[in-house]
């Protein structure tokens, strides 16, 4: 159970590979926006920045998300103090 303090706390967002390059940053910290409670909600908040944010995180794009270093889905819950990463489908090996 999360306290109200962590729920309103800061989150750390990471961007990798193509997303890091096109968005122009590898990471940022922000206070969890009001009303944002899921991965999908955070993506929608970021898309509202417009331009590359709207296109790179758009619904037609293949974007994967991890919460605290575990793969997540749009409906995965997020809260303050967590690490959320956005990246393209992986291509290692």
């Amino acid at each position, binding site marked *: 159970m999360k306290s109200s303090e962590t729920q309103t706390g800061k989150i750390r967002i990471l961007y990798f590979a193509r997303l890091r390059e096109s968005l122009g940053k590898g990471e940022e910290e922000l206070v969890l926006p009001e009303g944002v409670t899921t991965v999908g909600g955070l993506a929608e908040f970021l898309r509202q920045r417009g331009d590359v944010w709207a296109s790179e995180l758009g619904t037609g794009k293949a974007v994967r998300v991890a919460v605290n270093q575990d793969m997540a889905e749009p409906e995965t819950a997020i809260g303050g103090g967590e690490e959320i*990463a956005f990246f*393209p489908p992986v*291509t*290692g090996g």
Partner: protein
Amino acid sequence: MTVRVQTEDFDVGAEIARLRKGNPRVGAVASFIGVVRDLNEGDEVATLTLEHYPGMTEKSLKDIVAQAKQRWDVYDALVVHRVGVLQPLDQIVLVVVTSAHRGEAFKACEFLMDYLKTRAPFWKKEATPQGSRWVEARASDDAAAERWS
């Protein structure tokens, strides 16, 4: 079990010797080595740069190895994956599995590579005469991983 992410090259013989050292019950060692090709999607590849998500990479590789050990009767497993700038002929990844018999070792080794390719957070960028580009994920890799579920 061991997983390592590193910029340095690896010595396959030394890695295999270390993995099976002192275990006389090992009757089979299966290994896979992924290497950089000089041609992809019809273009010459000069360099391949590998990026990863420090922390999550190691966590996901350990999780994949743990799944392999649950599914098959293997004694030990090793995954070494390089990051940074690589060139054609360079080694990228090594997977080694030890078991009593070859069937389990082959299957676990193939499973590890199929899952690594679709789940571990690595990304490749290749430099070609037409410029640099991020390598796209392949549907055939997803299909290969699906076989095990």
